[in-house]
């Protein structure tokens, strides 16, 4: 059985895929070569030149695979990325290039080539490429489009892999900066809390010193006080450590109420310093599937934002409860509210109204929540305050 494979279709597919990657594709004019060939037959040399030219014009790794998943052609960016010549690549099964390897914790993704060959369009699937010789890991965003014949049947697929290793590293570094900034803002308040802890220990020790001749029953409460205060200090250090841990790693079943309670404790020195009151109303909720450090960061940021939005003596109310198959949490403040002009930019990266802000707190929070299938929204009344609402799907099972 013969099928027509129109070059114009390849161009359209190339253009479509490349546009989604925000790169222009050089469109060669006046190409209407129609080639008739068997599905597994040899490739017409003339058409191969056309396809090669098109592939070369794409500044990302671009690969065309036939409907057996074997590479018809690939560009030199691909050769460079996978360390094989174009001749070696031709005829290889696409998966063997390593371009389509899943990230270890990524169990959700299906084989990209099969999806494209079944007519689906794949957008920005995250993949990793490990160089077996050097061990270097490249992070890729792979897109794939089916190439259709005249009857609209997929006969091949175009894969485009964008190397986002540097971009990802940069994003991680920015996330680190954001995380450390929150601790920086709390540093003075944390130092105060530590001083209170040391104050209690020093004085309990002093009182103990004067009661060495007293019965053990009188000294016991002082020793307990020292032990408890030391535990309080250790818990504080633990909370800071947990907070500073990166948000990487697998998702686990997480109790959002526990995360909120931890974020409230972590920020306690800050809101006490601001003379603010933080109240929580937490109803037991089903677990969500997420990374604890990520969620802790979301709530810590929201509490810090709320405190900074309020004049001294304000109130922050935090709620958490189940709603249908979701966990819904709200963080409300009695602050100045968000001016209507700023409201649509709240989740934009780098948008901030704070003198020392990075504008990454809320955009980061949104990114985290979206990655767990959740979302964040807000309602703000200037002069009255703002409520942020976080929704996360309950973990199945």
């Amino acid at each position, binding site marked *: 059985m013969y099928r027509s494979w129109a070059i114009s279709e390849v161009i359209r597919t190339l253009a479509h895929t490349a546009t989604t990657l925000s790169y222009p594709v050089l469109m060669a004019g006046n190409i209407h070569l129609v080639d008739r060939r068997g599905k597994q037959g040899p490739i017409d040399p003339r058409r191969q030149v056309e396809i090669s030219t098109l592939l070369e014009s794409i500044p990302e790794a671009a690969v065309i695979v036939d409907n057996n998943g074997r590479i018809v052609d690939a560009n030199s960016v691909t050769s460079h990325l996978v360390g094989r010549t174009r001749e070696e690549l031709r005829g290889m099964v696409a998966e063997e290039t390593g371009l389509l390897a899943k990230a270890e914790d990524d169990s959700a993704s299906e084989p990209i080539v099969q999806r494209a060959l079944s007519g689906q369009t794949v957008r920005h699937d995250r993949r990793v490429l490990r160089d077996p010789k050097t061990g270097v890991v490249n992070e890729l965003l792979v897109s794939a489009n089916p190439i259709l014949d005249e009857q609209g049947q997929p006969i091949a697929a175009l894969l485009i892999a964008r190397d986002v290793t540097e971009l990802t590293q940069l994003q991680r570094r920015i996330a680190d900066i954001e995380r450390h900034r929150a601790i920086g803002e709390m540093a003075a308040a944390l*130092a*105060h809390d530590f001083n*209170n802890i040391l*104050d209690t220990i020093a004085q309990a020790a002093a009182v103990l010193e004067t009661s060495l001749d007293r019965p053990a029953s009188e000294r016991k409460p002082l020793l307990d*006080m020292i032990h408890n205060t030391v535990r309080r200090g250790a818990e504080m250090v633990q909370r800071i450590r947990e907070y500073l841990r990166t948000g990487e790693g697998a998702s686990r079943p997480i109790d959002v109420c526990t995360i909120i309670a931890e974020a409230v404790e972590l920020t306690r020195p800050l809101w006490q*310093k601001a*003379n603010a009151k933080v109240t929580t109303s937490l109803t037991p909720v089903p677990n969500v599937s997420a990374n604890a450090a990520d969620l802790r960061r979301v709530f810590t940021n929201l509490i810090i934002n709320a405190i900074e939005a309020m004049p001294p003596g304000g109130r922050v109310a935090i709620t958490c409860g189940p709603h249908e198959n979701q966990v819904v949490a709200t963080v409300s403040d009695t602050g100045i509210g968000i001016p209507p002009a700023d409201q649509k930019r709240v989740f934009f990266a780098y948008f901030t109204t704070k003198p020392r802000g990075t504008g990454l707190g809320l955009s980061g929070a949104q990114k985290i929540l979206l990655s767990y299938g959740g979302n964040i929204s807000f309602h703000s009344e200037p002069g009255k305050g703002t409520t942020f609402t976080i929704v996360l799907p309950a973990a199945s099972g």
Partner: protein
Amino acid sequence: MARILCVDDEPNVVTLKCAILEAAGHVVTASTSAHDAIEKLESSSYDAVVTDWRLGDANGRTVVQAAKARSGTPVVVVSGYVAEAFQAAEPLADLYLEKPVNAQELVTIVNELLKTSRAVSRG
């Protein structure tokens, strides 16, 4: 021996400070809120006040003012927020001590203040 009012919103801390001052021979009354401290200052007389700055219901300023309004009782502010206390209280209090405070230091300072204030009231 002197009568001292000791204020801190943290019950453990107030218990310890009372114990330290009592061991130094003073009669100490504990208070854990600004509101309660002001009531006590209005109903009884004290020779000195030792107070925290950030109290649950108000800041130490109200306590300093209440103590000073009554016969200029000497006041020591003991806080982790000494700089803030110093600015906000317009140096109304006699002394500001930064936490953590050494017990012996606290006793020495309170005794010195009592000596000075007695000398002033006698003088």
